[in-house]
């Protein structure tokens, strides 16, 4: 069975009389160790899907299995446990705690994990070991995003979810971040789900999921994923 499996998942927002189907009955699956990219235009429901997958949001209908666990049926406590032990999240706007240094931000994650990476190792893997004692405000956007990735990696999650991690970054920095994620996926055999509205990135993925208006319009496996370095956009 696949690591991630969406079965006919709906997410509806009721705004008075109108019902908006942000996610409109989607089903797809992602295998373990894959680097999956979700693409789609703005408002397609990508973030909603990721949030449901990350246990931050609940589906209105349908079932989501992660590692044979139906996360739509989990109670509050188990859902937190799920986020705590199974999920790593990288946000578009980094969301580092401004009052903690880079290292401390990573520690924030390692303190609650069962089998965490050493936080120095994590920072080293994102190449920021020298900046470990800097506060977020003292780091550039890319550096902050790398700390954010280090924080997610340090938990050693089953699933690494990234919502437009390069959205606020320039081309080169974005590329470096993507490379870091790809390497992590390859080397650590970690399943990575990455959201982007940038079509150009899709060649680097093992699996491409294309969404439109809350529906998955394409779910294909990329037979020859490319290295990030070889992609230009």
């Amino acid at each position, binding site marked *: 069975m696949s690591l991630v499996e969406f079965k006919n998942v709906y997410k509806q927002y009721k705004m008075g009389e109108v019902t908006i189907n942000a996610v409109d009955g989607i089903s797809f699956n992602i295998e373990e160790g894959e680097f999956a990219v979700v693409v789609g235009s703005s408002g397609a429901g990508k973030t909603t899907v990721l949030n449901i997958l*990350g246990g931050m949001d609940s589906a209105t209908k349908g079932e989501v299995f992660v590692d044979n666990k139906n996360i739509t049926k989990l109670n509050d406590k188990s859902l937190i446990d799920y986020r705590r032990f199974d*999920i790593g999240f990288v946000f578009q706007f980094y*969301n580092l705690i401004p*009052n903690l240094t880079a290292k401390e931000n990573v520690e924030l994650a390692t*303190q*609650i994990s069962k089998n965490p990476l050493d936080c120095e190792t994590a920072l080293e893997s994102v190449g920021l070991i020298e900046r470990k004692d800097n506060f977020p*405000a*003292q780091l550039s956007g890319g550096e902050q995003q790398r700390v954010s990735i280090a924080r997610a990696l340090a938990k050693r999650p089953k699933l690494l979810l990234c919502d437009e991690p390069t959205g606020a970054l320039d081309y080169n920095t974005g590329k470096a971040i993507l490379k870091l994620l790809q390497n992590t996926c390859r080397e650590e055999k970690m399943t990575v789900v990455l959201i982007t509205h940038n079509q150009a990135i899709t060649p680097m993925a093992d699996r491409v999921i294309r969404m439109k208006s809350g529906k998955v319009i394409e779910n294909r496996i990329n037979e020859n994923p490319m290295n990030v370095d070889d992609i230009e956009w």
Partner: protein
Amino acid sequence: MKKALFKNTFREIKNTKARFISIMMIVALGVGFFVGVKSTAPSMEQMAIDYYEETNLMDFRLISTVGFDEDDVKAVENTSGINDVSPSYFLDVSTTSGDTGKTIRLLGAPSKYADSDIINDTLVIEGRMPTKDGEIAIECNDFSKYKIGDKLTIDEKVGDTDIKGQLSTLEYEVVGIVKSPMYISIERGTTTVGNGKIDEFAYIAESNFELERYTVMYATLDTSKKAVSPFSEEYEKLIDDVTDNLELTADVRVEAFTGENIDEAQKKIDDGKKELEEEKAKVEKELADAKAEIEKGEKEYESEISTAQAQIDSAQAEIQKGREELSAGKSEYEKSVAVFNDEINSAKEKLDEGYAQFESAYAQIDNLKTTKSQLEAEKVTAATVTINGIISTLPQGTSQEVLDTLNAYAVSITTENAVAVLNEAKAYLSSVFYGAYDQAFDMALAGIAQLDENITKLSDTIALSEEKLLPVKEELDKGYAELNAKEQEGLAALELALAQLDEAEEKLNTASATLGNSRAELLDAKADGKKQLEDAKKKYEKGKKEAEEEFSKAEKELSDAQKELDDLGEIKWMIFNRDDNPGYSGFVDNTGRVDAVASVFPMFFLLVAMLVCLTTMTRLVEEKRTEIGTFKALGYSDRSITFKFVFYACSAAFLGCVLGCVSCIPTLPRVIYNAYSMLYNMEDSIDIVVDKMSLVLALLAAFACCALVTLFVCYKNLLHKPASLMRPKTPKAGKRILMERITPLWNRFNFSSKVTFRNLFRYKSRLFMTAIGIAGCTALMLTAFGLYNSINDVCDIQFKELCKYNTIIVTDKEKPAGEMGELLKAIDNDDRFVSSALVSQKSISVSSDKESVNSDVYLSVAQNPEDFEKLITLRNRVTKEELSLSNTGAVITEKLAKMLSLKVGDTVYIGEEKKETTVLGITENYVYNYVYMSEEAYENVYGEKPLYSTVYAEADDLNVDVEKELGSDYLKREDVTAISFTSTIIKDFKDMIGSMNMVVLVMIISAGALAIVVLYNLTNINLAERNREIATIKVLGFYHKETSAFVYRENIILTIIGILFGLILGIWLWDFVVKTIEMDTVMFGKSIHAISFVLAAVLTGVFSLVVNFIMFFKIKAINMVESLKSIE
């Protein structure tokens, strides 16, 4: 304002309800509390003004040392500035009816005098005012236990003053319960009778007073009451002016009185004195005559006695002489007896001597006779031996016949025949033996011849001697006979002499007996005479004493009259105004106190309100950066953008003001007045008079602080260019704090502690707001609890630890300790009492070099300091070290020492006379002010012993029944006027305190409200500000508890800091409040109990917990998705 902006603003308010309500609530609390409390004083003042006007309270009260007459009344009425005058009476009396004795001030029922209005009108609570003799209306205060229909008997005397003569009746029936504007507080003032305290006042009809002159005049000012508030300075000035006028009137009237009364009285006294002198002289002369007569009689008596004595003395001398002669005769007789005896004896001796010689001579003759008979015996022996010798030499064979013959010869030998026998024997033997033995015989015969010769010689000698002795013996015998005759003769002569002597003695004895009789007679006569004399003298003395007594009585009468006149001495009018009414000035002071407290408390609220507003608005404006930028970019002016926020803040402030005013202004003054109404006997409720000044001030402050703070925050943000505003604000840079430098410590912290500490130091305004808000809450609460302690300690410490006595017995009058014996003994022997002490107590004024205190100070003199200290603990409040009275100075109470700024060792001046003494110690005391002295110390200061009137006693297991029993037992005594028990004082006090506790409760509630508002607001903003952070860590998989702890830690630390500061601040605030509201007569407890600190801290902690608990759900509800959706 543009419509869109308006809409936007209302939506903002709707979206941030919690913050808006926070600002509103804090403003409501601040403004409401401030204006509410501030309005209390004016409301109370207005109530007083109305009450005084309604009852037409006098403005002046005049008293004179001699009372007043109609002319005086008219004179006062005509004084400029005076409207109405009402003359009346008052009399301080005591009553022993009821359970305990009481000192009552009897007042004449207010009545219309001439055409003036009734002054000091009473309010009848129940029944009616007395209209005829024997009716009485009693005051309505709690400690008056009378009911309508009760009977009340006034004591005939109070102290030395006769009351019976001053009242038409002493029996009264209670017909009404009233209150008087003159007695607005529970104070009843002082008096010169009883123990110096008036317990109650009561009204009787004026016709009951049998006094020649009015004792008091009440007068009102000419000015309309409505025009001038009695609390204004204008009124004070008016009073001063009119007082001056009244003084002039007084001078005139006093002079008139002196002319009419004093001089005449003086003349009467002088006449009396003169008359007395004359009478005295007359009586003195009579007495002198009597005395002279007695002296004469005395002299006569002396001479008569001495003559009789002389006669007796001469008889005595004669007897003496006779006795001497007799004894001379006796001794002569004895002498002649001795001589006679000597003579006889010597003659006898001589005769005896001669007789002895004769005897010895006779003895010699006997010797010779013996020798002769010896010789004769020898002759026999020699003859016998010769024969026996021859026998033995006879040859053997000599015939028996020879032998027998020889033996016969031997045996037959005698003195006379010896020679013959021998010759025969010779012859015989010669015949037989032929002469053989002749020779032997011859020899023997020769020997015997010799012997014979000697014997013959001896016989001759004896015969001769005997012949010589015979005449001697005859002569001796004759001598003896003569001597005997002579002795007989002498003895007879002596016996005769002795008989004569005895006769003489007999005679003397008879004479002596006669003398004795006459002597006894003389003694009797002497005693008789003396008694007569004595009687005469006694009669004289008695007469003299009587005369003297009469004179001294007359003199005393005169001097009393003189003294009375002198005591009037300086005839004086005393002009009092309302300030001298018991409790009047206290009421004014109290309203001032409320005002002072009102000024302090709301300062916190305003300060906190400002901080709440600042943080809230800062947050709001920062949240709306983008929006501000957008509006700016769209072309809205800075002013209209700013206006939106100012409008937001000000509408919150406005609603807060309305809410605060509506809820607090009508309630707070009433609550506070309710507390005070326990102390005051005025209207039951008050009409609210809003202190407009404070209202305006509070509104201005509230609006200004909200608006200014908002303007300030907006200004800071509007400076930026629209573009930079629309970009997310660069997060405030993380900063290292000092604590991180302590690496070992820092490294031990987990991330949330680190965040907590960094946050604490980064968001200073938040830190201050919370700390100040919580500190304010704790401080208010501590003040409230501390106040509660202070007030309750007064009762608890004063009556449980300091005053051990529970019974006070007041005597009929002041008297020296010596005259108290009976009462003291009765108390001593009463085993319901454990101990007792005799005390002299009077109301005095006291001063130091700097200050002086004139009211509510009592001089308490202990007759026996040891007993006294058993009942009244004298000790240092702080060290609890016991103090004791000594003869070198006085111990004063703490409050008094403070008011006079006195230290131990300083000099204190007692009474009007300013007697000096040293402060020996300062003792803990809470109610009233005392100067304690021992009797010796008093004597050292005043030069005389004090007069006593009070006994403090401690009864065992005192309860209502025992009190009743003691009351009836002791009031039966002639020498007891009143007996009271501290239980009633304690109850009154407890009631009073109970009402004060209401104020404390108000404070605690407002403090709690403050804490909740501040904490809620703070946490709310904290959450909003850290929404993203919280969402992030929630995404990371933090449990709810961990997430909350992340937020709470800061709150908890701030709460703890705030509590600590608050406790310190609270001590200071409490100290201030206690000092402000303290009255002169009461010292509040000087310590906050530990439990109060704990309560203040714990309650604040609990409020904080409640807020945190509410917040827990808010944290739980934070939506991760929405919070993280966009950048702010």
